[in-house]
Protein backbone atom coordinates (compact mmCIF):
# COMPACT_ATOMS: atom_id res chain seq x y z
CA UNK A 1 0.00 0.00 0.00
CA UNK A 2 1.49 3.34 -0.97
CA UNK A 3 1.40 6.41 1.24
CA UNK A 4 -1.46 8.03 -0.70
CA UNK A 5 -3.70 5.06 -0.11
CA UNK A 6 -2.59 4.81 3.51
CA UNK A 7 -3.60 8.43 4.13
CA UNK A 8 -6.91 7.88 2.32
CA UNK A 9 -7.80 4.82 4.41
CA UNK A 10 -6.72 6.53 7.64
CA UNK A 11 -8.96 9.51 6.90
CA UNK A 12 -11.89 7.23 6.04
CA UNK A 13 -11.48 5.17 9.21
CA UNK A 14 -11.15 8.28 11.41
CA UNK A 15 -14.20 9.84 9.79
CA UNK A 16 -16.18 6.63 10.25
CA UNK A 17 -15.33 6.50 13.94
CA UNK A 18 -15.77 10.18 14.73
CA UNK A 19 -18.64 11.20 12.41
CA UNK A 20 -21.52 10.59 14.87
CA UNK A 21 -19.69 12.69 17.50
CA UNK A 22 -18.67 15.49 15.13
CA UNK A 23 -22.19 15.70 13.74
CA UNK A 24 -24.41 14.57 16.62
CA UNK A 25 -27.57 15.84 14.93
CA UNK A 26 -26.97 13.62 11.91
CA UNK A 27 -26.50 10.22 13.55
CA UNK A 28 -29.49 8.65 11.82
CA UNK A 29 -28.56 10.28 8.51
CA UNK A 30 -25.05 8.86 8.77
CA UNK A 31 -26.46 5.42 9.58
CA UNK A 32 -28.66 5.67 6.48
CA UNK A 33 -25.60 6.71 4.47
CA UNK A 34 -23.92 3.46 5.51
CA UNK A 35 -27.05 1.58 4.53
CA UNK A 36 -26.85 3.15 1.06
CA UNK A 37 -23.15 2.29 0.78
CA UNK A 38 -23.80 -1.33 1.74
CA UNK A 39 -26.73 -1.88 -0.64
CA UNK A 40 -24.78 -0.16 -3.43
CA UNK A 41 -21.70 -2.34 -2.83
CA UNK A 42 -23.77 -5.52 -2.76
CA UNK A 43 -25.71 -4.52 -5.87
CA UNK A 44 -22.43 -3.91 -7.65
CA UNK A 45 -21.26 -7.47 -6.84
CA UNK A 46 -23.78 -8.88 -9.32
CA UNK A 47 -24.64 -5.79 -11.38
CA UNK A 48 -21.19 -4.32 -11.83
CA UNK A 49 -18.71 -7.15 -11.34
CA UNK A 50 -20.76 -10.04 -12.73
CA UNK A 51 -22.99 -8.26 -15.27
CA UNK A 52 -26.31 -9.44 -13.82
CA UNK A 53 -28.46 -6.37 -13.23
CA UNK A 54 -30.86 -7.36 -10.51
CA UNK A 55 -33.79 -5.09 -9.73
CA UNK A 56 -34.91 -7.48 -7.03
CA UNK A 57 -32.15 -7.06 -4.43
CA UNK A 58 -34.69 -5.16 -2.34
CA UNK A 59 -36.30 -8.58 -1.80
CA UNK A 60 -33.42 -9.49 0.50
CA UNK A 61 -33.73 -6.17 2.35
CA UNK A 62 -37.43 -6.69 3.03
CA UNK A 63 -37.02 -10.36 3.82
CA UNK A 64 -34.13 -9.51 6.14
CA UNK A 65 -36.38 -7.10 8.04
CA UNK A 66 -39.12 -9.66 8.48
CA UNK A 67 -36.83 -12.54 9.39
CA UNK A 68 -34.97 -10.45 11.97
CA UNK A 69 -38.22 -9.21 13.48
CA UNK A 70 -39.81 -12.64 13.60
CA UNK A 71 -36.73 -14.22 15.16
CA UNK A 72 -36.48 -11.48 17.79
CA UNK A 73 -40.15 -11.86 18.74
CA UNK A 74 -40.24 -15.65 18.51
CA UNK A 75 -37.39 -16.01 21.00
CA UNK A 76 -39.68 -14.81 23.80
CA UNK A 77 -43.26 -14.56 22.55
CA UNK A 78 -45.79 -16.11 20.22
CA UNK A 79 -45.45 -14.30 16.88
CA UNK A 80 -49.05 -14.62 15.69
CA UNK A 81 -50.43 -13.31 18.98
CA UNK A 82 -47.83 -10.52 19.13
CA UNK A 83 -48.48 -9.13 15.65
CA UNK A 84 -52.24 -9.23 16.10
CA UNK A 85 -52.31 -7.83 19.62
CA UNK A 86 -54.61 -5.02 20.68
CA UNK A 87 -53.61 -2.01 22.75
CA UNK A 88 -54.46 -3.64 26.07
CA UNK A 89 -51.99 -6.45 25.54
CA UNK A 90 -48.45 -5.41 26.37
CA UNK A 91 -45.42 -7.49 25.49
CA UNK A 92 -42.31 -6.84 27.48
CA UNK A 93 -38.73 -7.57 26.44
CA UNK A 94 -35.98 -7.51 29.02
CA UNK A 95 -32.69 -5.87 28.04
CA UNK A 96 -31.03 -9.23 27.64
CA UNK A 97 -33.91 -10.49 25.50
CA UNK A 98 -33.74 -7.37 23.35
CA UNK A 99 -30.03 -7.56 22.58
CA UNK A 100 -30.07 -11.33 22.07
CA UNK A 101 -33.02 -10.86 19.73
CA UNK A 102 -31.24 -8.12 17.79
CA UNK A 103 -28.03 -10.08 17.31
CA UNK A 104 -29.58 -13.45 16.48
CA UNK A 105 -32.25 -11.72 14.37
CA UNK A 106 -29.69 -9.86 12.27
CA UNK A 107 -27.50 -12.90 11.69
CA UNK A 108 -30.51 -15.12 11.04
CA UNK A 109 -31.77 -12.60 8.49
CA UNK A 110 -28.44 -12.74 6.67
CA UNK A 111 -28.33 -16.52 6.60
CA UNK A 112 -31.98 -16.85 5.54
CA UNK A 113 -31.50 -14.34 2.71
CA UNK A 114 -28.40 -16.04 1.38
CA UNK A 115 -30.34 -19.33 1.23
CA UNK A 116 -33.17 -17.48 -0.57
CA UNK A 117 -30.62 -16.14 -3.08
CA UNK A 118 -29.47 -19.69 -3.83
CA UNK A 119 -33.04 -20.80 -4.54
CA UNK A 120 -34.13 -17.70 -6.51
CA UNK A 121 -30.79 -17.63 -8.32
CA UNK A 122 -31.14 -21.26 -9.34
CA UNK A 123 -34.49 -20.39 -10.90
CA UNK A 124 -33.60 -17.03 -12.46
CA UNK A 125 -29.93 -17.22 -13.49
CA UNK A 126 -30.98 -18.81 -16.76
CA UNK A 127 -32.33 -15.36 -17.68
CA UNK A 128 -29.96 -12.88 -19.28
CA UNK A 129 -29.82 -9.10 -19.52
CA UNK A 130 -33.13 -7.26 -19.14
CA UNK A 131 -34.99 -10.52 -18.56
CA UNK A 132 -33.01 -11.15 -15.40
CA UNK A 133 -33.72 -7.58 -14.23
CA UNK A 134 -37.46 -7.93 -14.76
CA UNK A 135 -37.56 -11.48 -13.40
CA UNK A 136 -35.95 -10.45 -10.13
CA UNK A 137 -38.10 -7.32 -9.91
CA UNK A 138 -41.11 -9.61 -10.21
CA UNK A 139 -39.85 -11.71 -7.30
CA UNK A 140 -39.52 -8.61 -5.09
CA UNK A 141 -42.96 -7.23 -5.98
CA UNK A 142 -44.64 -10.60 -5.53
CA UNK A 143 -42.96 -11.11 -2.18
CA UNK A 144 -44.16 -7.70 -0.95
CA UNK A 145 -47.73 -8.49 -1.95
CA UNK A 146 -47.62 -11.95 -0.40
CA UNK A 147 -46.22 -10.71 2.89
CA UNK A 148 -48.73 -7.86 3.08
CA UNK A 149 -51.49 -10.47 2.99
CA UNK A 150 -49.94 -12.74 5.58
CA UNK A 151 -51.61 -12.11 8.93
CA UNK A 152 -49.13 -14.09 10.98
CA UNK A 153 -46.52 -11.39 10.30
CA UNK A 154 -48.97 -8.52 10.69
CA UNK A 155 -50.29 -8.30 7.14
CA UNK A 156 -50.42 -4.82 5.64
CA UNK A 157 -49.84 -3.17 9.02
CA UNK A 158 -46.38 -4.58 9.33
CA UNK A 159 -44.61 -5.28 12.61
CA UNK A 160 -43.71 -3.08 15.55
CA UNK A 161 -40.57 -4.01 17.42
CA UNK A 162 -39.40 -3.19 20.93
CA UNK A 163 -37.58 0.12 21.35
CA UNK A 164 -33.88 0.39 22.25
CA UNK A 165 -33.95 -0.01 26.04
CA UNK A 166 -31.50 2.77 27.00
CA UNK A 167 -31.19 6.45 26.09
CA UNK A 168 -32.41 6.95 22.52
CA UNK A 169 -29.36 9.04 21.53
CA UNK A 170 -27.24 6.10 22.58
CA UNK A 171 -29.55 3.94 20.50
CA UNK A 172 -28.76 6.03 17.44
CA UNK A 173 -25.05 5.47 18.00
CA UNK A 174 -25.72 1.75 18.52
CA UNK A 175 -27.41 1.46 15.12
CA UNK A 176 -24.78 3.67 13.48
CA UNK A 177 -22.11 1.31 14.78
CA UNK A 178 -23.98 -1.75 13.52
CA UNK A 179 -24.35 -0.28 10.03
CA UNK A 180 -20.80 1.08 9.92
CA UNK A 181 -19.28 -2.19 11.15
CA UNK A 182 -21.20 -4.18 8.53
CA UNK A 183 -20.13 -1.68 5.86
CA UNK A 184 -16.46 -1.75 6.80
CA UNK A 185 -16.51 -5.54 6.98
CA UNK A 186 -18.17 -5.75 3.57
CA UNK A 187 -15.70 -3.29 2.02
CA UNK A 188 -12.68 -5.17 3.35
CA UNK A 189 -14.18 -8.47 2.21
CA UNK A 190 -14.87 -7.18 -1.33
CA UNK A 191 -11.47 -5.50 -1.55
CA UNK A 192 -9.96 -8.93 -0.99
CA UNK A 193 -12.50 -10.91 -3.02
CA UNK A 194 -11.98 -8.87 -6.19
CA UNK A 195 -8.27 -9.69 -6.19
CA UNK A 196 -8.83 -13.45 -6.08
CA UNK A 197 -9.48 -15.94 -8.87
CA UNK A 198 -13.12 -15.77 -7.82
CA UNK A 199 -13.22 -12.07 -8.70
CA UNK A 200 -11.60 -12.78 -12.05
CA UNK A 201 -14.12 -15.52 -12.79
CA UNK A 202 -17.16 -13.32 -12.15
CA UNK A 203 -15.58 -10.60 -14.30
CA UNK A 204 -15.22 -13.19 -17.03
CA UNK A 205 -18.92 -14.02 -16.71
CA UNK A 206 -19.71 -10.31 -17.09
CA UNK A 207 -17.50 -9.81 -20.15
CA UNK A 208 -18.43 -12.96 -22.07
CA UNK A 209 -20.37 -15.66 -20.31
CA UNK A 210 -20.35 -18.03 -23.29
CA UNK A 211 -16.59 -17.81 -23.50
CA UNK A 212 -16.33 -18.45 -19.77
CA UNK A 213 -18.47 -21.57 -20.20
CA UNK A 214 -16.42 -22.69 -23.17
CA UNK A 215 -13.31 -22.41 -20.99
CA UNK A 216 -14.85 -24.68 -18.38
CA UNK A 217 -15.67 -22.18 -15.63
CA UNK A 218 -18.51 -23.38 -13.35
CA UNK A 219 -20.58 -20.30 -14.19
CA UNK A 220 -23.75 -21.16 -12.26
CA UNK A 221 -21.76 -22.01 -9.14
CA UNK A 222 -19.99 -18.64 -9.25
CA UNK A 223 -23.20 -16.74 -9.93
CA UNK A 224 -25.02 -18.40 -7.04
CA UNK A 225 -22.14 -17.87 -4.63
CA UNK A 226 -21.82 -14.19 -5.54
CA UNK A 227 -25.51 -13.46 -5.17
CA UNK A 228 -25.74 -15.45 -2.00
CA UNK A 229 -22.91 -13.45 -0.38
CA UNK A 230 -24.55 -10.21 -1.53
CA UNK A 231 -27.90 -11.37 -0.14
CA UNK A 232 -26.31 -12.17 3.22
CA UNK A 233 -25.14 -8.59 3.66
CA UNK A 234 -28.41 -7.09 2.39
CA UNK A 235 -30.33 -9.35 4.77
CA UNK A 236 -28.13 -8.21 7.63
CA UNK A 237 -28.71 -4.50 6.94
CA UNK A 238 -32.41 -5.21 6.44
CA UNK A 239 -32.41 -6.72 9.92
CA UNK A 240 -30.56 -3.74 11.40
CA UNK A 241 -33.01 -1.38 9.67
CA UNK A 242 -35.96 -3.23 11.20
CA UNK A 243 -34.71 -2.57 14.74
CA UNK A 244 -33.64 0.98 13.88
CA UNK A 245 -37.03 1.91 12.41
CA UNK A 246 -38.92 0.14 15.26
CA UNK A 247 -42.04 -0.07 13.10
CA UNK A 248 -42.10 -1.16 9.47
CA UNK A 249 -44.73 -2.25 6.99
CA UNK A 250 -44.41 -4.42 3.90
CA UNK A 251 -44.85 -2.30 0.77
CA UNK A 252 -43.40 1.13 1.62
CA UNK A 253 -40.66 0.16 4.05
CA UNK A 254 -39.64 -3.46 3.63
CA UNK A 255 -40.15 -4.31 -0.05
CA UNK A 256 -39.76 -0.70 -1.21
CA UNK A 257 -39.01 -1.50 -4.84
CA UNK A 258 -39.32 2.06 -6.14
CA UNK A 259 -37.29 3.71 -3.39
CA UNK A 260 -34.30 1.87 -2.03
CA UNK A 261 -34.64 -0.82 -4.71
CA UNK A 262 -33.92 1.76 -7.40
CA UNK A 263 -31.68 4.02 -5.31
CA UNK A 264 -29.07 1.27 -4.93
CA UNK A 265 -28.86 0.94 -8.71
CA UNK A 266 -28.62 4.71 -9.18
CA UNK A 267 -25.83 4.93 -6.57
CA UNK A 268 -23.78 2.37 -8.45
CA UNK A 269 -24.40 3.95 -11.87
CA UNK A 270 -23.50 7.35 -10.45
CA UNK A 271 -20.29 6.15 -8.81
CA UNK A 272 -19.17 3.72 -11.49
CA UNK A 273 -20.15 0.11 -12.13
CA UNK A 274 -17.67 -2.66 -11.58
CA UNK A 275 -15.27 -0.66 -9.42
CA UNK A 276 -14.57 -1.04 -5.71
CA UNK A 277 -14.89 2.64 -4.79
CA UNK A 278 -17.57 3.56 -7.31
CA UNK A 279 -20.56 2.34 -5.27
CA UNK A 280 -19.17 4.01 -2.12
CA UNK A 281 -18.66 7.37 -3.84
CA UNK A 282 -21.96 7.05 -5.68
CA UNK A 283 -23.84 6.33 -2.46
CA UNK A 284 -22.30 9.34 -0.71
CA UNK A 285 -23.01 11.73 -3.60
CA UNK A 286 -26.51 10.35 -4.06
CA UNK A 287 -27.39 10.50 -0.39
CA UNK A 288 -26.11 14.09 -0.06
CA UNK A 289 -27.99 15.10 -3.20
CA UNK A 290 -31.16 13.46 -1.94
CA UNK A 291 -31.02 15.01 1.52
CA UNK A 292 -30.21 18.48 0.16
CA UNK A 293 -33.05 18.44 -2.34
CA UNK A 294 -35.46 16.98 0.21
CA UNK A 295 -34.67 19.95 2.48
CA UNK A 296 -34.24 22.85 0.10
CA UNK A 297 -36.22 21.89 -2.97
CA UNK A 298 -39.23 20.41 -1.24
CA UNK A 299 -42.01 19.82 -3.72
CA UNK A 300 -39.49 19.40 -6.53
CA UNK A 301 -37.33 16.79 -4.83
CA UNK A 302 -38.54 13.87 -6.96
CA UNK A 303 -38.13 15.95 -10.12
CA UNK A 304 -34.55 16.77 -9.15
CA UNK A 305 -33.88 13.12 -8.35
CA UNK A 306 -35.38 12.03 -11.66
CA UNK A 307 -33.22 14.58 -13.48
CA UNK A 308 -30.13 13.24 -11.71
CA UNK A 309 -30.99 9.70 -12.80
CA UNK A 310 -31.61 10.77 -16.40
CA UNK A 311 -28.39 12.80 -16.59
CA UNK A 312 -26.37 9.94 -15.09
CA UNK A 313 -27.78 7.33 -17.43
CA UNK A 314 -27.54 9.48 -20.56
CA UNK A 315 -24.26 11.36 -20.08
CA UNK A 316 -22.23 9.46 -17.46
CA UNK A 317 -22.78 5.82 -18.28
CA UNK A 318 -19.49 4.86 -16.65
CA UNK A 319 -20.11 6.93 -13.54
CA UNK A 320 -17.62 9.02 -11.60
CA UNK A 321 -14.98 6.28 -11.34
CA UNK A 322 -15.44 5.26 -14.97
CA UNK A 323 -14.98 8.86 -16.04
CA UNK A 324 -11.83 9.16 -13.92
CA UNK A 325 -10.48 5.95 -15.43
CA UNK A 326 -10.91 7.25 -18.95
CA UNK A 327 -9.36 10.63 -18.13
CA UNK A 328 -6.56 9.40 -15.89
CA UNK A 329 -5.93 5.74 -16.77
CA UNK A 330 -2.46 5.88 -15.22
CA UNK A 331 -3.98 6.36 -11.74
CA UNK A 332 -5.52 2.92 -12.06
CA UNK A 333 -2.52 1.17 -13.59
CA UNK A 334 -4.19 0.87 -16.98
CA UNK A 335 -1.66 1.05 -19.79
CA UNK A 336 -2.52 2.55 -23.11
CA UNK A 337 -1.12 1.37 -26.44
CA UNK A 338 2.22 2.87 -27.38
CA UNK A 339 2.78 3.14 -31.09
CA UNK A 340 5.39 0.49 -31.71
CA UNK A 341 3.92 -2.57 -33.37
CA UNK A 342 6.75 -5.05 -33.12
CA UNK A 343 4.82 -8.01 -31.81
CA UNK A 344 3.77 -10.81 -34.03
CA UNK A 345 0.28 -10.94 -35.41
CA UNK A 346 0.15 -7.37 -36.59
CA UNK A 347 -3.22 -6.47 -38.02
CA UNK A 348 -4.69 -8.53 -40.76
CA UNK A 349 -7.74 -7.64 -42.79
Amino acid sequence: MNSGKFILYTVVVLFTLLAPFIMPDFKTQLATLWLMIIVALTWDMTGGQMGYNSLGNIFFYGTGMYVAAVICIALTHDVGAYTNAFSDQVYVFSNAEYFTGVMIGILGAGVFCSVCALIIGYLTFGLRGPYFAIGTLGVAIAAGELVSNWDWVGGGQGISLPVFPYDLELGKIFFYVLFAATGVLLFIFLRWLYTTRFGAAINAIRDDEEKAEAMGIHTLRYKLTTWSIAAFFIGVVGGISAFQLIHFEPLETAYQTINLGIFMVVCVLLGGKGTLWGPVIGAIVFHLFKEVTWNYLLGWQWVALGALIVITVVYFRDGIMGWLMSVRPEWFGIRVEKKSGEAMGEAGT
Partner: protein
Amino acid sequence: MSSIIEIRNVSKNYGGVVANKAISLDVEQGTITGLIGPNGSGKTTLFNSIVGYHPIDSGSICFEDREISHIQVQDIARLGLIRTFQQTRIYKAMNCVENMLISLPHRKMRFLEAFSRNSATDFENADRLLEFVGLYEKRFLMAGSLSFGQQKLLEFAMALMNEPKTLLLDEPTAGINPTLINGLIDRLLRANREFGITLFVIEHNMRVIMNLAQKIYCLAHGELLAQGTPGDIQNDQRVIDAYLGAH
Protein backbone atom coordinates in the same frame (compact mmCIF):
# COMPACT_ATOMS: atom_id res chain seq x y z
CA MET B 1 -3.01 -45.04 -32.22
CA SER B 2 -6.40 -44.58 -30.62
CA SER B 3 -9.09 -42.07 -31.41
CA ILE B 4 -9.59 -39.29 -28.88
CA ILE B 5 -12.69 -37.96 -30.64
CA GLU B 6 -14.97 -40.48 -32.30
CA ILE B 7 -17.92 -39.19 -34.31
CA ARG B 8 -20.46 -41.68 -35.61
CA ASN B 9 -23.38 -40.85 -37.92
CA VAL B 10 -23.95 -37.39 -36.53
CA SER B 11 -26.82 -35.46 -38.10
CA LYS B 12 -28.00 -31.97 -37.33
CA ASN B 13 -30.84 -30.07 -38.99
CA TYR B 14 -31.84 -26.45 -38.54
CA GLY B 15 -35.50 -26.61 -39.44
CA GLY B 16 -35.47 -27.83 -43.02
CA VAL B 17 -31.79 -27.13 -43.57
CA VAL B 18 -29.53 -30.15 -43.25
CA ALA B 19 -26.33 -28.83 -41.69
CA ASN B 20 -24.68 -32.18 -40.95
CA LYS B 21 -25.81 -35.49 -42.42
CA ALA B 22 -24.57 -38.82 -41.05
CA ILE B 23 -21.01 -37.68 -40.50
CA SER B 24 -18.49 -40.15 -39.10
CA LEU B 25 -14.89 -39.24 -38.42
CA ASP B 26 -12.04 -39.87 -36.01
CA VAL B 27 -9.47 -37.58 -34.49
CA GLU B 28 -6.50 -39.59 -33.35
CA GLN B 29 -4.70 -38.93 -30.10
CA GLY B 30 -1.70 -36.67 -30.46
CA THR B 31 -2.22 -35.80 -34.12
CA ILE B 32 -3.30 -32.73 -36.04
CA THR B 33 -6.48 -33.33 -38.00
CA GLY B 34 -7.90 -30.88 -40.51
CA LEU B 35 -11.49 -30.13 -41.43
CA ILE B 36 -12.05 -28.30 -44.69
CA GLY B 37 -14.96 -27.56 -46.96
CA PRO B 38 -16.57 -24.70 -48.84
CA ASN B 39 -18.54 -22.02 -46.99
CA GLY B 40 -21.74 -23.39 -45.50
CA SER B 41 -20.62 -27.00 -45.66
CA GLY B 42 -21.28 -27.55 -41.94
CA LYS B 43 -17.80 -27.35 -40.41
CA THR B 44 -18.66 -24.95 -37.61
CA THR B 45 -21.93 -26.78 -36.98
CA LEU B 46 -19.93 -29.96 -36.42
CA PHE B 47 -17.62 -28.11 -34.00
CA ASN B 48 -20.60 -26.73 -32.14
CA SER B 49 -22.07 -30.22 -31.89
CA ILE B 50 -18.83 -31.62 -30.49
CA VAL B 51 -18.47 -28.98 -27.76
CA GLY B 52 -22.13 -29.20 -26.80
CA TYR B 53 -23.49 -25.86 -28.02
CA HIS B 54 -26.54 -27.54 -29.43
CA PRO B 55 -27.99 -31.02 -29.20
CA ILE B 56 -27.48 -33.28 -32.20
CA ASP B 57 -30.43 -34.95 -33.88
CA SER B 58 -28.90 -38.40 -34.09
CA GLY B 59 -25.58 -40.16 -33.88
CA SER B 60 -22.89 -40.35 -31.25
CA ILE B 61 -19.89 -38.26 -30.24
CA CYS B 62 -17.29 -39.78 -27.95
CA PHE B 63 -14.36 -38.06 -26.28
CA GLU B 64 -11.86 -40.47 -24.72
CA ASP B 65 -14.43 -43.26 -25.12
CA ARG B 66 -17.02 -41.30 -23.24
CA GLU B 67 -20.31 -40.27 -24.84
CA ILE B 68 -20.49 -36.46 -24.73
CA SER B 69 -23.34 -35.66 -27.11
CA HIS B 70 -25.76 -35.13 -24.22
CA ILE B 71 -23.66 -33.17 -21.75
CA GLN B 72 -23.33 -29.43 -21.42
CA VAL B 73 -20.73 -27.02 -22.74
CA GLN B 74 -19.01 -26.38 -19.42
CA ASP B 75 -18.84 -30.06 -18.53
CA ILE B 76 -17.34 -30.92 -21.90
CA ALA B 77 -14.81 -28.11 -21.49
CA ARG B 78 -13.89 -29.52 -18.11
CA LEU B 79 -13.06 -32.87 -19.70
CA GLY B 80 -10.21 -31.04 -21.41
CA LEU B 81 -11.86 -30.45 -24.78
CA ILE B 82 -11.53 -26.73 -25.50
CA ARG B 83 -12.48 -24.76 -28.60
CA THR B 84 -11.65 -21.34 -29.99
CA PHE B 85 -14.15 -19.25 -31.88
CA GLN B 86 -14.27 -18.18 -35.51
CA GLN B 87 -15.30 -14.72 -34.33
CA THR B 88 -12.59 -14.37 -31.72
CA ARG B 89 -13.84 -14.23 -28.16
CA ILE B 90 -11.66 -12.69 -25.50
CA TYR B 91 -12.41 -10.53 -22.46
CA LYS B 92 -11.96 -7.13 -24.07
CA ALA B 93 -12.02 -4.95 -20.97
CA MET B 94 -9.11 -6.76 -19.35
CA ASN B 95 -5.45 -6.79 -20.23
CA CYS B 96 -3.73 -9.81 -21.78
CA VAL B 97 -2.31 -11.15 -18.53
CA GLU B 98 -5.72 -11.01 -16.85
CA ASN B 99 -7.22 -12.79 -19.84
CA MET B 100 -4.63 -15.51 -19.41
CA LEU B 101 -5.13 -15.89 -15.66
CA ILE B 102 -8.90 -16.26 -16.04
CA SER B 103 -8.22 -19.12 -18.42
CA LEU B 104 -6.53 -21.25 -15.77
CA PRO B 105 -7.91 -24.78 -15.92
CA HIS B 106 -10.84 -24.73 -13.53
CA ARG B 107 -11.22 -28.48 -13.88
CA LYS B 108 -7.98 -28.90 -11.98
CA MET B 109 -9.10 -26.56 -9.23
CA ARG B 110 -11.25 -27.23 -6.20
CA PHE B 111 -13.93 -24.59 -5.66
CA LEU B 112 -12.32 -23.23 -2.52
CA GLU B 113 -9.10 -22.64 -4.41
CA ALA B 114 -10.96 -19.92 -6.29
CA PHE B 115 -10.79 -17.91 -3.09
CA SER B 116 -7.06 -17.46 -3.37
CA ARG B 117 -4.87 -15.26 -5.49
CA ASN B 118 -2.98 -16.52 -8.49
CA SER B 119 0.38 -18.03 -7.64
CA ALA B 120 3.71 -16.87 -9.00
CA THR B 121 3.72 -20.00 -11.19
CA ASP B 122 0.43 -18.93 -12.75
CA PHE B 123 1.91 -15.54 -13.64
CA GLU B 124 5.03 -17.22 -15.04
CA ASN B 125 2.91 -19.55 -17.16
CA ALA B 126 0.86 -16.63 -18.45
CA ASP B 127 4.01 -14.72 -19.40
CA ARG B 128 5.62 -17.79 -20.95
CA LEU B 129 2.60 -18.52 -23.16
CA LEU B 130 2.21 -14.87 -24.15
CA GLU B 131 5.88 -14.97 -25.11
CA PHE B 132 5.17 -18.18 -27.03
CA VAL B 133 2.52 -16.52 -29.23
CA GLY B 134 4.51 -13.29 -29.47
CA LEU B 135 2.33 -11.00 -27.37
CA TYR B 136 4.71 -10.55 -24.45
CA GLU B 137 5.40 -6.91 -25.33
CA LYS B 138 1.70 -6.18 -25.31
CA ARG B 139 0.78 -8.10 -22.19
CA PHE B 140 -0.43 -5.11 -20.17
CA LEU B 141 -2.56 -3.65 -22.93
CA MET B 142 -6.33 -3.98 -22.93
CA ALA B 143 -7.22 -7.03 -24.99
CA GLY B 144 -9.90 -5.04 -26.80
CA SER B 145 -7.29 -2.61 -28.12
CA LEU B 146 -5.33 -5.35 -29.89
CA SER B 147 -5.74 -5.94 -33.61
CA PHE B 148 -7.98 -8.81 -34.74
CA GLY B 149 -4.97 -10.98 -35.55
CA GLN B 150 -3.42 -10.34 -32.14
CA GLN B 151 -6.74 -11.14 -30.48
CA LYS B 152 -6.70 -14.49 -32.29
CA LEU B 153 -3.24 -15.18 -30.95
CA LEU B 154 -4.37 -14.20 -27.47
CA GLU B 155 -7.31 -16.57 -27.72
CA PHE B 156 -4.93 -19.34 -28.78
CA ALA B 157 -2.67 -18.57 -25.80
CA MET B 158 -5.69 -18.60 -23.48
CA ALA B 159 -6.68 -22.01 -24.79
CA LEU B 160 -3.15 -23.30 -24.13
CA MET B 161 -3.29 -21.83 -20.61
CA ASN B 162 -6.28 -24.08 -20.00
CA GLU B 163 -4.01 -27.12 -20.55
CA PRO B 164 -6.48 -28.90 -22.83
CA LYS B 165 -6.09 -32.46 -24.02
CA THR B 166 -7.69 -31.58 -27.32
CA LEU B 167 -8.08 -28.18 -28.90
CA LEU B 168 -10.65 -27.40 -31.57
CA LEU B 169 -9.49 -24.40 -33.59
CA ASP B 170 -12.00 -22.62 -35.81
CA GLU B 171 -10.01 -20.89 -38.57
CA PRO B 172 -6.92 -19.98 -36.57
CA THR B 173 -5.28 -18.04 -39.39
CA ALA B 174 -8.28 -16.04 -40.63
CA GLY B 175 -7.52 -12.35 -40.30
CA ILE B 176 -3.84 -12.84 -39.66
CA ASN B 177 -1.30 -11.04 -41.81
CA PRO B 178 -0.09 -13.54 -44.47
CA THR B 179 3.57 -12.88 -43.69
CA LEU B 180 3.00 -13.99 -40.11
CA ILE B 181 1.07 -17.14 -40.92
CA ASN B 182 4.26 -19.22 -41.11
CA GLY B 183 5.02 -18.24 -37.54
CA LEU B 184 1.57 -19.37 -36.49
CA ILE B 185 1.86 -22.72 -38.29
CA ASP B 186 5.11 -23.25 -36.42
CA ARG B 187 3.42 -22.47 -33.10
CA LEU B 188 0.51 -24.82 -33.80
CA LEU B 189 3.00 -27.59 -34.61
CA ARG B 190 4.93 -26.88 -31.43
CA ALA B 191 1.74 -26.87 -29.34
CA ASN B 192 1.04 -30.30 -30.78
CA ARG B 193 4.55 -31.73 -30.34
CA GLU B 194 5.82 -30.04 -27.20
CA PHE B 195 2.61 -29.76 -25.18
CA GLY B 196 1.12 -32.97 -26.58
CA ILE B 197 -2.19 -31.35 -27.46
CA THR B 198 -4.34 -33.03 -30.08
CA LEU B 199 -5.49 -30.44 -32.61
CA PHE B 200 -8.63 -30.50 -34.71
CA VAL B 201 -8.53 -27.53 -37.07
CA ILE B 202 -11.04 -25.90 -39.40
CA GLU B 203 -9.12 -23.99 -42.01
CA HIS B 204 -9.82 -22.26 -45.28
CA ASN B 205 -6.23 -21.54 -46.13
CA MET B 206 -5.13 -24.65 -48.08
CA ARG B 207 -1.44 -23.89 -47.77
CA VAL B 208 -1.79 -23.82 -43.99
CA ILE B 209 -3.82 -26.99 -43.61
CA MET B 210 -1.68 -28.97 -46.05
CA ASN B 211 1.42 -28.06 -44.05
CA LEU B 212 -0.20 -28.71 -40.74
CA ALA B 213 -2.46 -31.72 -40.77
CA GLN B 214 -1.64 -35.40 -40.99
CA LYS B 215 -5.16 -36.27 -41.93
CA ILE B 216 -7.85 -34.12 -43.53
CA TYR B 217 -11.61 -34.49 -43.74
CA CYS B 218 -13.55 -32.53 -46.35
CA LEU B 219 -17.22 -31.61 -45.92
CA ALA B 220 -19.58 -30.42 -48.62
CA HIS B 221 -23.30 -29.72 -48.27
CA GLY B 222 -23.23 -31.16 -44.77
CA GLU B 223 -21.87 -34.52 -45.85
CA LEU B 224 -18.45 -36.06 -45.55
CA LEU B 225 -17.04 -35.83 -49.06
CA ALA B 226 -13.51 -37.12 -48.75
CA GLN B 227 -10.83 -38.05 -46.26
CA GLY B 228 -7.16 -38.82 -46.41
CA THR B 229 -3.68 -37.42 -46.23
CA PRO B 230 -3.06 -33.89 -47.52
CA GLY B 231 -1.71 -35.45 -50.72
CA ASP B 232 -4.87 -37.52 -51.28
CA ILE B 233 -7.13 -34.55 -50.66
CA GLN B 234 -5.23 -32.24 -52.97
CA ASN B 235 -5.63 -34.68 -55.83
CA ASP B 236 -9.22 -35.68 -55.10
CA GLN B 237 -11.39 -34.55 -58.01
CA ARG B 238 -14.53 -34.40 -55.80
CA VAL B 239 -12.85 -31.93 -53.43
CA ILE B 240 -11.71 -29.74 -56.30
CA ASP B 241 -15.21 -29.82 -57.77
CA ALA B 242 -16.77 -28.91 -54.41
CA TYR B 243 -14.51 -25.89 -54.04
CA LEU B 244 -15.12 -24.75 -57.61
CA GLY B 245 -18.86 -25.18 -57.21
CA ALA B 246 -19.44 -28.17 -59.49
CA HIS B 247 -22.10 -29.56 -57.15
